[in-house]
């Protein structure tokens, strides 16, 4: 070997010297088990890369082994050319096989490129070789393993695994992509199984710099027979967007005819590589797929119309289809759709100057296919099951939290939606909203702007700008109804009045489950509450349970205490301010993502119990940890225009206590909240009777030792949200309230400064209630 001249190495394979990795690559190849004989010395390439040639041993089936070549034409030893780019090992080498390697096998890269002329480029890995380089060890050995496996499979024609599905034709060097709904095209085929072709309307953007049709879209599926006027109309369409010109043209979709001797369509079980470059070849290929006749007849119809209009050349789009012996990978259909862009040109026929024919030399380029945006596509990409039913998600509040939840749900295709918000989008909203506001028309409704985005995601979105509390009132007096097929109601209004209004509605006035969401304490705490089946427990119960949770949860209590003044006035204009919580958009998103995720889960499978989720921003402030609590059924008692709601935890405490004291009367203090407006008591827990209480078989006298202190304690630890709402005692031998019981209640009135309170009497059969409405009586 000649001594190499000292050269300046610029680090990426200088043109003046051999690539620094070349020798090492050759050694790696030589060491591979499937490599036979001597690996060639690396040869420099112009662009700073290098090339190595070697023989790879192929594992052939027994009979093929004996004669040195398989039925598919794979030899016991195959010559391999590895073409390393100058950026190796960051970029992977390209693999080439001899020019006469059997190209009718599946899995080839269609155009070799890299100046390797007519060598064949196998596609040995389903992903990118550049990525494979970095997955495992030296990378190169793994690429050779894949090549060795590929050759072995090629030798026994096992490159397509029927269990996995038919591998669609590989078309890397495409001119662009065409967007269409494959399901729609397949339904056309189902409706006309005897074979045929249809015209389609297409709009496309052509990049004038490189001629690529990135990207075209089928906009019309059944325009009927082609007429000269309509073709002229289509071709006259012109729009500009940025530096792209948007135009329109026609497409033809052709599908396989029924085979002559049977009622089934022609099946194409042969893998044909993508090498069609002109119209003549396209016809041949269409014949292979069994749709040649239909394509020719449709194209001659177009040619005739073009002759009438004296058109000579314009782009059209053709989608061929082939019926495969088994379903395509990841799909249920056996119909493979194969689109092309055609530089359709007409030439005079021998018949005379008025007769034109499509030029067989018209240039053709393969196009990629992209699914049209649809809820199915969104479901698929998100990996979610589409929830049953077509009813809407009713979104109350389209502010920063609500808009994000809706966008998350819409992106996974969970619509339709009914979006309710009375507010207009104001510039300051842009700080935390999922949207940025309308670029030209300020003051658009948040609901309308959000609906437009949802519709872009191909989902229905209705809007409602009424005041939500007013709306709830209308529902309450039966002047309005939410859609009966509502799947989920999400409250993200951040409004106490809305929460109260929702709590006040009867169970059958809210169809679907109600999910309440809110951020608290500068966005340090988030809450999600899902009502139970039949709205029991309801949102009011769940919120009381959340406050009750603070009594035990020190961490939660301290977070809430810190954020007590977190809602503040923010100036949003001269002399104008908004009463809002200050926090960055990112923090809203941290919580909104979890909330949307739970909403999606509830849509898929509604939980059998009510639940509260409490999310705390973690110490790093980059994550949220959510804890879930479930709530069983609330006992609801109605009396004298009041509703008394006893949460299951309080009921459990009472029955435990009565069990302990058996035949003696016992009792204690009820902690909870009173909603004056809803005329509702909610009891969340019971405080044990003070030690100086007196229990006997026919009376119970509540003591006073530490009572005030304990009630105060519960009040303060609940964030001043829960308080003393009354007392309870038991009548183990049954019987309603005594005269003494009534008298005691009147006494309490004095201590409670006129706030309403209750006296609850437990008997083995039922609860008896005495209510003192206090000053509002």
């Amino acid at each position, binding site marked *: 070997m000649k001594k190499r001249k000292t050269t300046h190495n610029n680090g990426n394979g200088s043109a003046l010297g051999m690539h620094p990795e070349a020798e090492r690559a050759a050694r790696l190849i030589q060491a591979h088990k499937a490599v036979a004989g001597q690996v060639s010395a690396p040869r420099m390439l112009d662009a700073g890369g290098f090339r190595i040639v070697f023989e790879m041993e192929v594992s052939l089936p027994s009979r093929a082994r004996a004669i040195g070549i398989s039925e598919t034409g794979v030899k016991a030893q195959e010559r391999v050319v590895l073409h390393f780019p100058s950026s190796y090992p960051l970029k992977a080498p390209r693999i080439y096989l001899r020019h006469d390697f059997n190209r009718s096998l599946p899995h080839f890269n269609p155009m070799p490129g890299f100046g390797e002329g007519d060598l064949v480029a196998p596609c040995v890995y389903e992903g990118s070789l550049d990525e494979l380089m970095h997955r*495992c060890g030296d990378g190169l050995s793994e690429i050779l393993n894949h090549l060795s496996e590929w050759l072995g499979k090629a030798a026994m024609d096992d490159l397509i695994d029927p269990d996995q599905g038919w591998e669609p034709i590989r078309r890397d060097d495409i001119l662009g992509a065409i967007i269409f709904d494959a399901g729609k095209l397949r339904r056309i085929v189902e409706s006309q199984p005897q074979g045929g072709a249809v015209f389609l309307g297409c709009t496309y953007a052509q990049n004038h710099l490189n001629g690529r049709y990135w990207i075209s879209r089928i906009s019309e599926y059944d325009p009927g027979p082609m007429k000269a006027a309509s073709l002229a109309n289509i071709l006259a369409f012109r729009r500009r967007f940025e530096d792209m010109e948007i135009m329109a043209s026609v497409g033809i979709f052709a599908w396989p005819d029924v085979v002559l001797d049977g009622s089934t369509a022609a099946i194409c079980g042969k893998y044909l590589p993508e090498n069609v470059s002109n119209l003549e070849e396209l016809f041949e290929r269409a014949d292979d797929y069994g749709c040649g006749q239909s394509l020719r007849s449709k194209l001659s119809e177009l040619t005739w119309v073009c002759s009438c209009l004296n058109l000579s050349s314009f782009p059209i789009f053709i989608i061929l289809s082939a019926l495969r012996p088994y379903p395509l990978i990841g799909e249920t259909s056996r119909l493979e759709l194969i689109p092309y862009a055609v530089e359709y040109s007409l030439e005079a026929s021998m018949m005379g100057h008025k007769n034109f024919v499509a030029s067989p030399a018209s240039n053709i380029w393969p196009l990629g296919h992209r699914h049209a945006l649809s809820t199915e596509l969104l479901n698929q990409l998100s990996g979610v099951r589409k929830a049953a039913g077509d009813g809407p998600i009713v979104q109350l509040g389209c502010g920063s939290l609500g808009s994000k939840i809706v966008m998350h749900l819409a992106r996974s295709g969970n619509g339709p939606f009914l979006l309710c918000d009375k507010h207009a989008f104001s510039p300051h909203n842009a700080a935390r909203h999922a949207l940025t506001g309308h670029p030209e028309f300020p003051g658009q409704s948040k609901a309308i702007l959000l609906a437009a985005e949802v519709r872009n995601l191909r989902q229905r979105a209705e809007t409602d700008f009424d005041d939500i509390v007013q709306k709830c009132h209308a529902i309450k007096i039966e002047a309005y109804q939410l859609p009966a097929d509502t799947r989920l109601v999400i409250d993200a209004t951040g409004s106490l009045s809305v929460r109260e209004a929702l709590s006040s509605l009867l169970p059958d006035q809210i169809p679907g489950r109600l999910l309440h969401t809110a951020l608290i304490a500068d966005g340090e705490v988030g809450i999600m509450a899902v009502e139970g089946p039949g709205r029991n427990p309801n949102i009011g119960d769940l919120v009381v349970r959340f406050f009750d949770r603070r009594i035990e949860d020190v961490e939660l209590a301290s977070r809430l205490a810190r954020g007590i003044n977190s809602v503040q006035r923010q100036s949003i204009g001269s002399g104008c301010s908004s009463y809002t919580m200050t926090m960055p958009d990112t923090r809203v998103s941290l919580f909104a993502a979890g909330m949307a995720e739970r909403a999606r889960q509830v849509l898929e499978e509604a939980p059998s119990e009510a639940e509260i989720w409490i999310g705390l921003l973690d110490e790093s402030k980059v994550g949220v940890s959510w804890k879930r609590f479930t709530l069983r059924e609330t006992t609801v008692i109605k009396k004298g225009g009041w509703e008394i709601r006893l949460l299951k935890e309080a009921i459990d405490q009472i029955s435990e206590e009565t069990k302990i004291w058996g035949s003696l009367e016992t009792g204690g203090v009820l902690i909870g909240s009173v909603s004056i407006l809803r005329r509702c008591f909610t009891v969340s827990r019971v405080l044990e009777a003070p030690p100086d209480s007196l229990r006997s078989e026919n009376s119970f006298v509540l003591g006073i030792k530490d009572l005030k202190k304990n009630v105060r304690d519960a009040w303060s630890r609940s964030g001043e949200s829960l308080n003393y709402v009354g007392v309870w005692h038991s009548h183990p031998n049954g019987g309603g309230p005594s005269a003494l019981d009534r008298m005691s209640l009147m006494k309490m009135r004095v201590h409670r400064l006129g706030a309403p309170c209750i006296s609850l009497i437990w008997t083995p059969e039922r609860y008896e209630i005495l209510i003192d409405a206090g000053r509002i009586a």
Partner: protein
Amino acid sequence: MPSTVTFFPVDNGDMTLIKVDDNDKTAILVDINVRQVCGEQENSMCDVAGELRKRLQKDKEGRPYVDVFLLSHPDEDHCRGLQDHFHLGPLHSYNYAPPKGKELKIVIREIWSSPMVFRRAGKYHTLCDDAKAFNGEARRRVKHFKEKGSAGDGDRIIIIGEDENGKTEDLEDILVRTDEVFNRVNGKTNDTVSMRVLGPLPPQETEELEEQLSKNHSSVILQFSIKAGEKTDACLYLTGGDAEVFIWEKLWERNKERVSCLEYNLMLAPHHCSWHTLSYERWNGGKGNPKVCKDAKSALSQARAGAFIVSSSKAIRDDDSDPPCSGAKREYLSILKGVKGEFYCTGEYPDEEQQEPLQFKVSREGPQPPAKRSAPIEGASVLAGSIRQPLIHG
């Protein structure tokens, strides 16, 4: 997926799974040798039980199963681990809650068993526990058949080879005689695979001949014929347990006028590539030029073009050990040379240090060995297996 024949690396022992490319993906397991993994071996020994389970289907109740389990003969290195990994007894006693750290046991839908082989094996040595358990299960199934006249999954059995003194006379429906070809697999006629019974040899006339068969590790010997595409005999797979020289000599005598019965594209070298398969003399490192029995070798020489012979054994060294025996390997190589075939040893695949199951795929052109691979070159990860970067999303 094409049909496959997989040899699990189990040292000197046998464990082979045939997966048939039919609608049911029928799984036929021939012998097992699942050794307890302990200490240092953990790093190098292949987890054959895990590898087997990976290849099995589960039934509607979630139980892994094989359609057929054939025990070629009851030596421990052919049935070790049976009780640990397979459910024995009627299916209604199946344990769905295995003890912690254990997996659900594998259901055997149909057993193929040869009472004649058991009888001959029992003459010279005591059976191991797993062999006794297998025998007990086979007897249970025969009894079930005698009582009910038919059987479902988990109770089926096929008796291979007639027993002595007419003991199999009332079992016509579940009996397959030597030299017969059958294609009833797990109660169904199978269009993709059929089996020719070459052994056990039927009961012999003299006590002396019977004794010879016992001493020569009488085994079930089958020629599987596996279809691929339209070719019904795309792969002939010959498997004969531990059968030794006398048996192969006899087989040649019986079949030399119809050698196609002994043909193969793929053969498991009998008795882990032992010298005694080919010769009546001791190997002894080749000293004294021990003679090969011509007829026995002829019986094992019906290799088709490009055939493969697999030794299910430890790595084969050029010394005086037997089995596996380097002398026997040389004889097999000489057979393969004429047909451009290739020899494999499970103890050397892909490396002596780190073995993997050796899987052949069946194509129209015969069985195909796995493509050759090399482990990627990397840093200090040899003990734990190669490090792979998870693919990421951006």
